[in-house]
């Protein structure tokens, strides 16, 4: 067996990307009152979403002409008209710099071609199998760490780790390298605030994945990387730069989001004990609970598109060359579609789908995996932590941030096994 490639740490060992990350997601306790105000101004409002919530400058997008698109119908319109509202120009200056030529930075026909190949590895029938083989062992190992104590911080001790460990398992990472891997993955995103550690981290992860791919092609196994390294469509393999960029993006797109999605799911249920009890007694409610958590506090509150031609939305003009903050959170709390939209209620009867995974061609490729992960995590918590409740002696959980929202702690008590 060949040794797996080694990862190189950042030059500056004291650099803490997690601190810098906090700066860019902010500590806004509740952006929703402001989001409602903005939506009431109309479906198209001048300016940047982020500027409403933080003074930390956005060095890559801040100076560009931009509007916010708000409300369910307007947001859905943007997401489902990709020929007008493009990804390439919207993401090349930020995500593209961090990760490279990923599918997020592509439009049709390039996007269509590569997306289908990647999606094959993440279809529901494929990821369901990972539930048992990959997700459950990670979930159980983490829970073993605190189950005997009768109390835990479910963020620090559970949700902040498990989706990342699922990814490590899929890329067969040496556990000793996990801390550096996580650090580099977060550091990559800092290209968006101009930190030099951003490109350094992207380069180091890229070198690691290039070597991993070389090894897997020489000696393919049944793992995800081997699959992606050898899969063919129309007789053609995925080009290395596209594949490496996808792997670079995975920690951020699949880890940071699922960590937060699971955290808000647990927060919603624990702060609504009658709903927690209902789900605990009837597990067929889990899919509704997951969808309601993602509607209520979707981790991705806003995404970008680039308006490629003069157009209008509900009679409101948008000029070619404008960057469009597509505020998913305003769609998911639009009172025209969701009654009493600010309430967490797993029993609501929806007539439309929430947009926490977006819509249109760039709809989250990992949504089936995210659902499997969240389902497995919630089931394990309900099975193994009887009489689960918030710890009355600790502060109540507070979801914060204007983007990638999450509570910092979720202190709970439960009956010891």
């Amino acid at each position, binding site marked *: 067996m060949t040794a797996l490639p080694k990862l190189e740490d950042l030059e500056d060992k004291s650099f803490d990307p997690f601190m810098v990350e906090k700066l860019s997601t902010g500590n806004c306790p509740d952006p929703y009152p402001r989001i409602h105000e903005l939506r009431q101004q109309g479906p198209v409002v001048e300016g940047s979403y982020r500027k409403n919530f933080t003074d930390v400058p956005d060095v890559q997008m801040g100076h560009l002409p931009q509007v916010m698109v708000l409300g369910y119908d307007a947001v859905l319109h943007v997401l*489902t008209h990709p020929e007008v509202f493009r990804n390439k120009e919207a993401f090349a200056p930020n995500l593209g710099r961090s990760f490279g030529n990923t599918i997020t930075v592509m439009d049709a026909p390039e996007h269509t071609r590569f997306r289908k190949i990647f*999606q094959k590895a993440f*279809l*529901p*029938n494929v990821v369901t199998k990972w539930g048992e083989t990959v997700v459950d062992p990670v979930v159980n190992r983490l829970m073993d760490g605190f189950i005997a104590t009768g109390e835990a911080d479910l963020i620090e001790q559970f949700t902040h780790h498990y989706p990342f460990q699922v990814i490590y398992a899929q890329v067969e990472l040496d556990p000793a390298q996990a801390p550096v891997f996580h650090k580099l993955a977060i550091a990559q995103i800092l290209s968006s605030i101009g930190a030099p550690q951003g490109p350094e981290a992207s380069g180091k992860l890229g070198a690691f994945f290039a070597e991993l791919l070389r090894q897997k092609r020489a000696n393919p196994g049944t793992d995800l990387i081997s699959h992606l390294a050898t899969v063919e469509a129309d007789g053609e393999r995925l080009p290395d730069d596209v594949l490496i960029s996808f792997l670079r993006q995975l920690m951020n797109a699949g880890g940071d989001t699922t960590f937060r999605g699971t955290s808000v799911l647990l927060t919603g249920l624990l702060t609504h004990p009658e709903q927690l009890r209902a789900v605990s007694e009837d597990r067929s409610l889990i899919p509704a609970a997951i969808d309601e958590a993602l509607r209520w506090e979707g981790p991705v509150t806003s995404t970008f598109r680039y308006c490629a031609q003069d157009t209008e939305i509900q009679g409101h003009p948008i000029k070619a060359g404008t960057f469009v903050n597509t505020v998913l959170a305003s769609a998911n709390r639009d009172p025209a579609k969701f009654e009493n939209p600010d309430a967490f209620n797993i029993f609501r009867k929806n007539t*439309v789908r929430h947009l926490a995974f977006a819509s249109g061609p760039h*709809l989250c*490729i990992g*949504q089936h995996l995210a659902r499997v992960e969240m389902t497995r995590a919630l089931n394990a918590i309900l099975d193994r932590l009887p009489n689960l409740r918030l710890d009355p002696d600790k502060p109540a959980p507070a979801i914060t941030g204007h983007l990638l929202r999450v509570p910092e702690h979720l202190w709970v008590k439960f009956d010891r096994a």
Partner: protein
Amino acid sequence: MKKWMCMNCGWIYEQELGDPIGGIAPGTAWEDIPEDWKCPDCGSLKSEFEMEEV
């Protein structure tokens, strides 16, 4: 069981459920869905769907 799946996003068409929001009544057979119908999640055309074992 064999079902029709969108190859761009993994959405699965279930005949019993149909796609009421998209104008397809519950019980509609796959063959009877019009060609201009689109995947409710990602907007791909019917032609992007494939029969899959699920």
